[in-house]
């Protein structure tokens, strides 16, 4: 992170920390999750306040994606309470924007980015697509609104210039921005981002984190981000949800990412080391194998 002093972050407006009005965005109380009849993790209690930027970290198969699927109403908790914006999680919640880990989009997808973002616009989902008039010279459907929303979403993630490009022609970082715009298009109150940084190098990761952080600050959107490496975003985070060994630890990064709390979580000795650039390296934990960067 020492490099970030050389290339300063985009100057953000001073953050006015609005006190969380109303209930928390996510409330979990003694939550237990099973996947294929095996307990993934249990007894997790945590709150995520509105407008918080939260990293969800932990080893593979720890149940990070399962947490997202529960919040989206695609997977039901086996015990405990989970509330999203003070309601039960349900499928098709328009207040949540989602970027899954794997998309079906690849090099052979020849379609405009703009189209993907537009398709995600909530509201009229049925019937034919753009510029459709049921009666000649009759009224159009409210497509202007949809086009504007898509344009705005692409602009917010700094991808306006990608609007008319083909999805298959984009680089990994550009594609993630478009997915982010796709999640953002209905003005959601919460973003669930599943490993958006996984295929990006360190510089692209930082750029994307910067975009996400700006969204958190300007739109006040509660954001949960699954990642393997916490270093690119550690300065922006409000909270960390660390899932490992069937248990969940939450709190501020400085509280969770300590040798003591991770040792308690894993049940074996874990060391949190910091290098000269203040990057975090976590040693131990998974079968005592060294695991770099959380």
């Amino acid at each position: 992170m020492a490099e970030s002093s050389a290339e300063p972050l985009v100057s953000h407006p001073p953050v006015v920390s609005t006190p969380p009005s109303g209930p928390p965005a996510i409330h979990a109380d003694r939550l237990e999750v099973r996947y294929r009849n095996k307990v993934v993790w249990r007894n997790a209690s945590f709150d995520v306040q509105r407008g918080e930027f939260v990293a969800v970290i932990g080893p593979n198969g720890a149940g990070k994606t399962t947490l997202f699927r529960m919040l989206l109403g695609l997977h039901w908790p086996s015990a405990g309470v989970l509330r999203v914006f003070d309601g039960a999680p349900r499928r098709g919640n328009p207040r949540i924007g989602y970027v899954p880990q794997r998309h079906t989009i690849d090099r052979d997808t020849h379609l405009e980015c703009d189209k993907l973002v537009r398709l995600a616009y909530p509201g009229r989902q049925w019937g034919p697509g753009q510029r459709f008039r049921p009666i000649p010279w009759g009224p159009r459907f409210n497509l202007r609104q949809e086009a504007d929303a898509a344009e705005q979403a692409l602009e917010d993630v700094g991808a306006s210039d990608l609007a008319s490009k083909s999805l298959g022609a984009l680089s990994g970082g550009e594609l993630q921005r478009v997915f982010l715009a796709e999640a953002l298009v209905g003005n959601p109150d919460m973003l669930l981002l599943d490993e958006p940084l996984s295929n990006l190098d360190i510089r692209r990761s930082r750029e994307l984190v910067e975009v996400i952080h700006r969204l958190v600050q300007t739109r006040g959107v509660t954001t949960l981000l699954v990642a393997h490496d916490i270093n690119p975003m550690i300065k922006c985070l409000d909270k960390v949800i660390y899932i490992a060994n069937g248990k969940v630890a939450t709190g501020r990064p400085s509280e969770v990412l300590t040798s003591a709390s991770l040792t308690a979580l894993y049940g074996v000795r874990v060391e949190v080391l910091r290098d000269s650039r203040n990057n975090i390296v976590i040693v131990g934990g998974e079968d005592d194998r060294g695991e770099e960067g959380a």
Partner: protein
Amino acid sequence: MSGGGPPWSWNLFTDLRFMWQYEFMRNAFEAGTIIALVAGLVGYFVVLRRSAFASHALGHTGFSGAAAAVLVGVDPVYGLLVFTMVTASGMALLGNRASNRDVEIGTVLAFALGLGLLFLSLYQGYATEAYSILFGEVLGISTAGVDFTFWTGLVVIAVVAMIYRPLLFASLDEDVAEAKGMPMLFLNLAFLLLLAVTISIAVQIIGVLLIFALMVTPAAIAVRLTKRAATAVIVSIVVAMTAVWAGLFIGFYEPYPVSFFIVGIVFVEYVCIRGMGVLRETEFLQAVDATEYEGVRSLRNASLSAAVAQALFVAGALFLTESLLAHPGAAWNAAGLYSHALLAIAFLVPAAFVGSVSFLLYFSGFRKMAASSRDFTSPAFLTLAGILGITMTVGGLGLFLGGVALNASAYPLAPVAILFGVPLLLLGVLLSVVGLFGQAVGNWRVGLRYEEGSLRTAAILTCLPFVGFAVAYVGYRRTLARGAPPTARPATV
């Protein structure tokens, strides 16, 4: 198909009118049009969802259905519909991604073919029925069959219109669509049922083994031409429709199966589109290690050779016109041309040669320029198309003249030579014009970069033979003589 019909007259209107006298040809055209429309539409989603193999397998289960229907003595279409729809429902119920599981699909496919074989062996009239189900028998469609195809096609189009948007989204981004609360099972089932119905009616024209040509290839061509969903659907439909029409048309006058012509047309189109895509992406078109000065020099030589080529071409064309006017009854074949238009040939052959040399020089010049500015990559690509164009023109002309010269009854392949020669010739001429356009664009951009007005004038004058390139030659000479550094305008990145 007719074989004994009137000879091919080269007058499209007479030919069409003659063909449409027959009811079976009218039926074939009507059914073919509807099928192409539906197949192009549904095919776009097949390509988007990558379920090409599933559509192939559905066709094969349709084969056993058709065979079963033949066995019990009903119209094969109904057997096709029942079997494909049951299989489609099974695929949908197995899960969202079941339609992409290669191994399972392959297993079912082999079993379905075997079952069809059993049904056919139980039935006595083995060969012809099997043949028409496997490869299509469009000329056997009855008027009732056309009505059935029409109404079924209408239902498919109506359903696609209703679920177009959610189906597009679910096909494109399954996980997000699911999270957004879209009815994935319903959409998957609806799509596979649409696919089943489309295949069932398309089998009439193209057969289960060749179903790919109508279901997948037109859409695959379309997505390479446009990145807009609605445009891609339209292009896909147009490609399928022209292939069916042209296939029927040629098939009527040639003694070979219609299915082959449809498949062949679609295949050639696909190869051309893919080839262009591959060329575009190769390193070959990227910048080479050369100075801009060298680029301008080869462009100067290129414009000179282009001017010479066009002068030769104009002279050749004039002599050809003159000899055609002088010998109105002369045979329109190689021997005839050789006897009465020798002078024209003497000019046209070198014109083709010098023309391809000029395209080649232009291409190398633009590539060298591309080292400094990306403005010159597309002219380089277009001039490359021009080289291809001239080669195809010459080849097509050769095939055509050869086919005409040979006796059709003695050499059964002579009509085939004509068949391939004419499209090759037309495509070649088209690509040559594209190459010419690339030269004009390139001249214009060099003029812009060096602020050399004569080059821009030359670009506009390209529409006049010889004059444009003569001016361009002067322009390039002036550019070189001026010795202006190539940094006259900053390189656009």
